[in-house]
């Protein structure tokens, strides 16, 4: 469908580079990423951001769809516990994320493919560092082949 991100085209040309889809909550993590940008903190360009209202909005099916569509890794970030714009969205999400991460591991999908963290609006540096770490770990794993759908 037209609204699907065209991951193939956004990948850097030439050798394989990891493609990471990041789901960031609007109130903290997206602002944190923005701060990293305006503060000119360098971080790897392998990330494509999808802004969501709250980490509580994330259905694990989003993450699976990203992997199915060819993402090599997924990063999810929300507000720190206690800081949620909607009071407890991230707390409800935390249980889901914990279980989902385990689920993927039991199915044999490398845990580094899907990562979760908290980044506040003031943590531009933390955001850049997390991205750096995720990209590095996914690069080590190599391309995602297990869930990708090819037509």
């Amino acid at each position: 469908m037209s609204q699907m991100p065209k991951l193939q085209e956004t990948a850097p040309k030439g050798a394989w580079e990891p493609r990471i889809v990041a789901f960031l909550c609007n109130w903290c993590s997206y602002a944190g990423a923005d701060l990293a940008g305006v503060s000119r903190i360098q971080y790897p360009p392998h990330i494509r951001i999808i802004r969501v209202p709250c980490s509580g909005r994330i259905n694990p099916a989003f993450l699976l769809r990203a992997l199915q569509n060819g993402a090599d890794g997924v990063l999810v970030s929300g507000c720190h516990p206690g800081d949620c714009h909607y009071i407890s969205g991230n707390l409800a999400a935390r249980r889901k994320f914990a279980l989902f991460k385990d689920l993927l591991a039991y199915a044999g999908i490398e845990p580094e493919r899907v990562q979760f963290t908290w980044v506040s609006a003031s943590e531009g540096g933390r955001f850049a560092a997390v991205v750096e770490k995720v990209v590095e770990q996914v690069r080590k794993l190599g391309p995602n082949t297990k869930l990708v759908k090819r037509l």
Partner: protein
Amino acid sequence: MTASHEIETRLREVAEGLLGDRKVDLFLGYEKTTLPFRTSPLFLTAPDKANRLVWNPFCTVNLAVYLARLFKAPADAREAQRAPPAPTVGLVLKGCDTRSVVALVQERQVPREKLVLVGVACPGMADTRKAERALGQYEALGAGEDPQGNVRAVIEDGTEVTLRREEILADACLECRSPTPAIHDFLLGEPSEARNADVARRRAVELESQPPGARWARFQEAFSKCIRCNACRQACPMCYCKDCLLDQARPRWIGAGTDFSDVALYHLVRAFHMAGRCTECGACVRACPMGIDVRLLVRRLNLDVEDLYKYRPGTAIDAVPVLSAFAIDDPQEFLTEP
């Protein structure tokens, strides 16, 4: 263990009484069907037909699956006006089935006050496929039960074969930790203890101990047989969503075919939705026409839920479902730190 025929007699009395005294409008139980090693759900409304109810090692269907349908919320105000008043339903429940009912009450799908729970202390149910396979090239033409609870089958050449109950028990029953319904209005049979409380954990840990590659291979091997018929979802009492994610067309989350990517997504999504909700009745495994161990992943997830949040699905009627609840200090070691 109370003999099946005693439970059966008592069951018929209870059902007849409930229907006769108008305590329930409908009684759900099991009846004999055309093939051996099986029973069929019985929707009983007439007290004088209560002798159709049976109790034997093959009363496998989790009757809670019909509740969400019977108590389906009307789609709109107009439908609500026309809808007949909700019935009062009595039903036969094993330990696992009771947990399904409790979970449905917890999730507000079914009103407790409209239910009469007739619990049976469950000795473990036989698996139709295991029983059939145990006969090798022969087919049973009739089946009964001996006083020890073993299955006796008459096969095609006229001989009688005894199948030991333990050898043909369903996998879910081998793993069962609470065979006796904890919540009930009637309890038939003497409460029995769990057979082996560790089986599920042992199975789950065995899977976990393998490296990711081997786990993926196991996942693939188990689920690549899937024909995407949705029987696991339809047989599951907890799969009551009116508009299942798997059926949604906009966006279409999961392709309809048997590309392994779609098969994997289907089972991952379904397992996730079952985390902390699956009452481990094994209905999905029984319904699967391909004989897949559908519970492979959720078996482990349920243990996670228990370890992390001290919660077992369907055990406390007033508990908040585990994924609707949270605590500020929930474990979060899984998070990525820079």
